[in-house]
């Protein structure tokens, strides 16, 4: 590490005031602080600090996503070979999937961080760590057969309109990864909905049906459970473990639960949001089960939790602290409504079989309102106390 320390120290003057690359100081700073936590000591207020910082927090979230990512890589290969009815080994499937997924990650981080560096240089502030997480989330919520240029365009939209326009990390209203996904959903609808993109089908072979469980259910054809009639159908256990078609990282509820455990245990993700979303979604599923008139409504409430992107969205997207409710009481309400609306949108609107994305975006917009009323209750308590004090 001495080599790196000496390297950074030696090139530093070029990036400081008067240096040739003065404008690129944020880029130098980003790389330097990535490799070395800077030698800053406390200058005001408390003399000691907690060792946690934003880089550690982001690193933990990425770490929590690794089970879903690794399983997703395997599953992409698995679905491809199974639907083609070809023989395959574990490594065949994994390497095939990895070969398809890694380009997504490279494009996502490359384009996203490139834009962040650009904005930081123009505005003259440090590159913030927010994109470290969004950069991994975006590939995980993409269907596998989406062209890479589309991913790049979506990343540009998400980082510029979804984040930088509001002031950067910590200031955004909407979850950036979901903004990317929603952009693709509305800008290239024929690509994102339907059944063409969910299983890797580079040669466009007919044998591969890219249909997801939700896609089938939306058409009134049950693809899950003992009464499934779709040509490709799955058991609830398949869905829980993740051996189903879907976006890259969303299929395995088990891998997501491992990630959830990591997030909650380290204190990085809010268990209140996760739990209340689970309750909200289950409740809505139960209500629909009570009045079922079509396949979607009849889907048992617990199956709703393991199909589609519900689990992934609840654990990794709804818990984004900047866009969720920021008061502890508000988080219960916010989480509950995310789960509630996710299932409602999923069932009521066949054109949007995946309701979790829209439910989270909707609640992102309403989170400040929820917080406002929670804080207002506190203010009213204080004013009431003032009134009794004056009267007394």
């Amino acid at each position, binding site marked *: 590490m001495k080599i790196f320390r000496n390297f950074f120290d030696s090139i530093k003057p070029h990036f400081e005031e008067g240096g040739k690359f003065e404008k690129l100081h944020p880029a130098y700073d980003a790389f330097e602080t990535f490799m*070395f*936590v800077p*030698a*800053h000591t406390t200058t005001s207020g*408390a003399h*000691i600090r907690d060792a946690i910082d934003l880089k550690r*927090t982001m690193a933990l979230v990425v770490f929590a996503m690794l089970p879903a990512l690794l399983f997703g890589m395997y599953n992409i290969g698995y679905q491809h070979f199974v639907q083609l009815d070809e023989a395959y080994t574990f490594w065949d499937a994994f390497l095939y999937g990895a070969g398809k997924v890694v380009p997504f990650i490279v494009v996502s981080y490359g384009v996203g961080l490139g834009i962040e560096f650009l904005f930081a240089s123009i505005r003259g502030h440090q590159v913030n760590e927010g994109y470290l997480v969004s950069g991994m989330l975006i590939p995980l919520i993409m269907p596998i057969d989406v062209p890479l240029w589309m991913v790049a365009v979506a990343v540009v939209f998400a980082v510029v309109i979804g984040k930088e326009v509001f002031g950067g990390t910590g200031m955004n209203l909407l979850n950036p990864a979901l903004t990317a996904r929603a952009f693709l959903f509305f800008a290239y609808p024929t690509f994102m909905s339907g059944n063409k993109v969910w299983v890797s089908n580079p040669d466009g072979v007919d044998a591969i049906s890219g249909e997801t469980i939700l896609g089938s259910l939306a058409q009134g054809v049950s693809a899950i459970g003992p009464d499934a009639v779709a040509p490709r159908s799955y058991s609830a256990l398949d869905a829980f473990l993740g051996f189903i078609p879907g976006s890259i990282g969303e299929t395995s509820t088990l891998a997501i639960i491992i990630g959830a455990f990591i997030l909650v245990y380290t204190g990085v993700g809010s268990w209140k949001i996760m739990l209340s979303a689970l309750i909200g979604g289950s409740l809505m599923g139960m209500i629909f089960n009570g009045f079922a008139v079509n396949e979607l409504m009849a889907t048992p409430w617990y199956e709703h939790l393991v199909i589609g992107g519900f689990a992934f969205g609840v654990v990794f997207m709804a818990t984004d602290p900047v866009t969720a409710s920021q008061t502890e009481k508000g988080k219960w309400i916010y989480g509950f409504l995310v789960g509630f609306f996710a299932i409602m949108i999923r069932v009521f609107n066949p054109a949007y079989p995946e309701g979790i994305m829209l439910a989270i975006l909707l609640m992102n917009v309403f989170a400040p309102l929820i917080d406002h009323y929670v804080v207002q209750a506190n*203010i009213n308590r204080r004013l009431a106390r003032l009134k009794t004090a004056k009267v007394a």
Partner: protein
Amino acid sequence: MSKDIRIRKGLDIAMVGAAERQILPTVQPDIFKIKPSDFYAVTPKLLVKEGDEVKVGTPLFYHKDIPSVYFSSPVSGEVVGVDRGAKRALEALRILPDKEQKYLKFDVPAESAFTADGVKKAIIDAGLWFSIMQRPFSVVANPSDSPKAIFISGFKSDPLACDLSFVLEERKEAFEMGLKALQHLSDGGVHLTFHADSKAPELNLGSARVHQHTINGPHPSGNVGVQIHHIDPINKGEVVWVVDPQHVAMIGSLFITGEVHMEKIVALSGSQFNETGYLWALPGAPMDALLKDRLKSGETRVISGTVLSGTTEGQEGALGFYHDTITALPEGNYSEFFGWAAPGFAKFSNSRAYFSWLSPKKQRDIDTHMHGEKRAFVVTGQYEEVFPFDIYPVQLIKSIMIGDIEAMENLGIYEVAPEDFALCEVVCTSKIAVQKWVREGLDLVREETM
């Protein structure tokens, strides 16, 4: 009516170097440095000049906004220097102490003759009024106010802070007399709070105007602001007075002896001390005398006050008027190779983000490293974990950042002081200078409402 308060939010930071319960030999400094900046929001108007002889109790300067309030000298000797800074602001008064200290004699009422006005006048005339601070705003109190009550926190829960149960044992008589005097200053009497786990001193006050309470829970249970919030919260327009226990003893000693005795028992704590312990010292005592031969080698941060809210004094500084702890910590100015990615078995954290969660109770040798750089608010729920008030801390800070005075008032700015937010500042992932913001907010509201 005595209250038993229980708080769950907060954090006890286990640090190496707590002061051992032993009284170390006193030091005789050869120069004293009196800093008016110890008294926040006081513009000092000088009453002495270079070459003047002062006794203990001689007024050195007065409060520009409240001219009746004097600040008297803790030592007798000759004024050898008046240091001025930018815009001729009075930075320090240097006094060469006499070998034998000379004390001014003040006319103080006897205990049986205590009245509100008599006690007040005696404290003001002796120049000890600075001992009485007010909430809201956490500044020196104004004698013409009528406070709702007087609050005294009988212990300090800050990490490595002075153990007042030890101190009050030594100063019991003066402390009792101080309470007997102070109870006359407010119709609401005095609220004295001790921690449920420690043995509160047996006080015979024979009075119904001193209410004793207990509080149980982690730091900041020792902060008087937390105690006020749970006993009788401050509403807009109300004023309460707060006094530190060793200042109560100072006032008591005034009424017992008729002289000003500002000596405190000061804790020397922190991992950079060779030997920790307690020391009798006067405010203004220079650090180099107090710390002589006591520190280990290596870069040290010398703090007058506690780790959470003290001021960096360095070896050339002096003990502050309100401080009874001197903390010496190792400086943390080293860069860490991939520090944020390390397993971190020994890193101090309130979260479980590092593997230090495996040894939660272990005392750690924490240094002054920032561990990161300043960012915008990102993580939520962190401040609330260590902030035992019915106040929304992040929303309050945000209202201060945008200067929205009405929002600040609505969210409870009148009830807080910067020290109440010290733990929020320690655990903040985004390294926001929380205490500085709170001080700014308090100043803004104070100036608007003056």
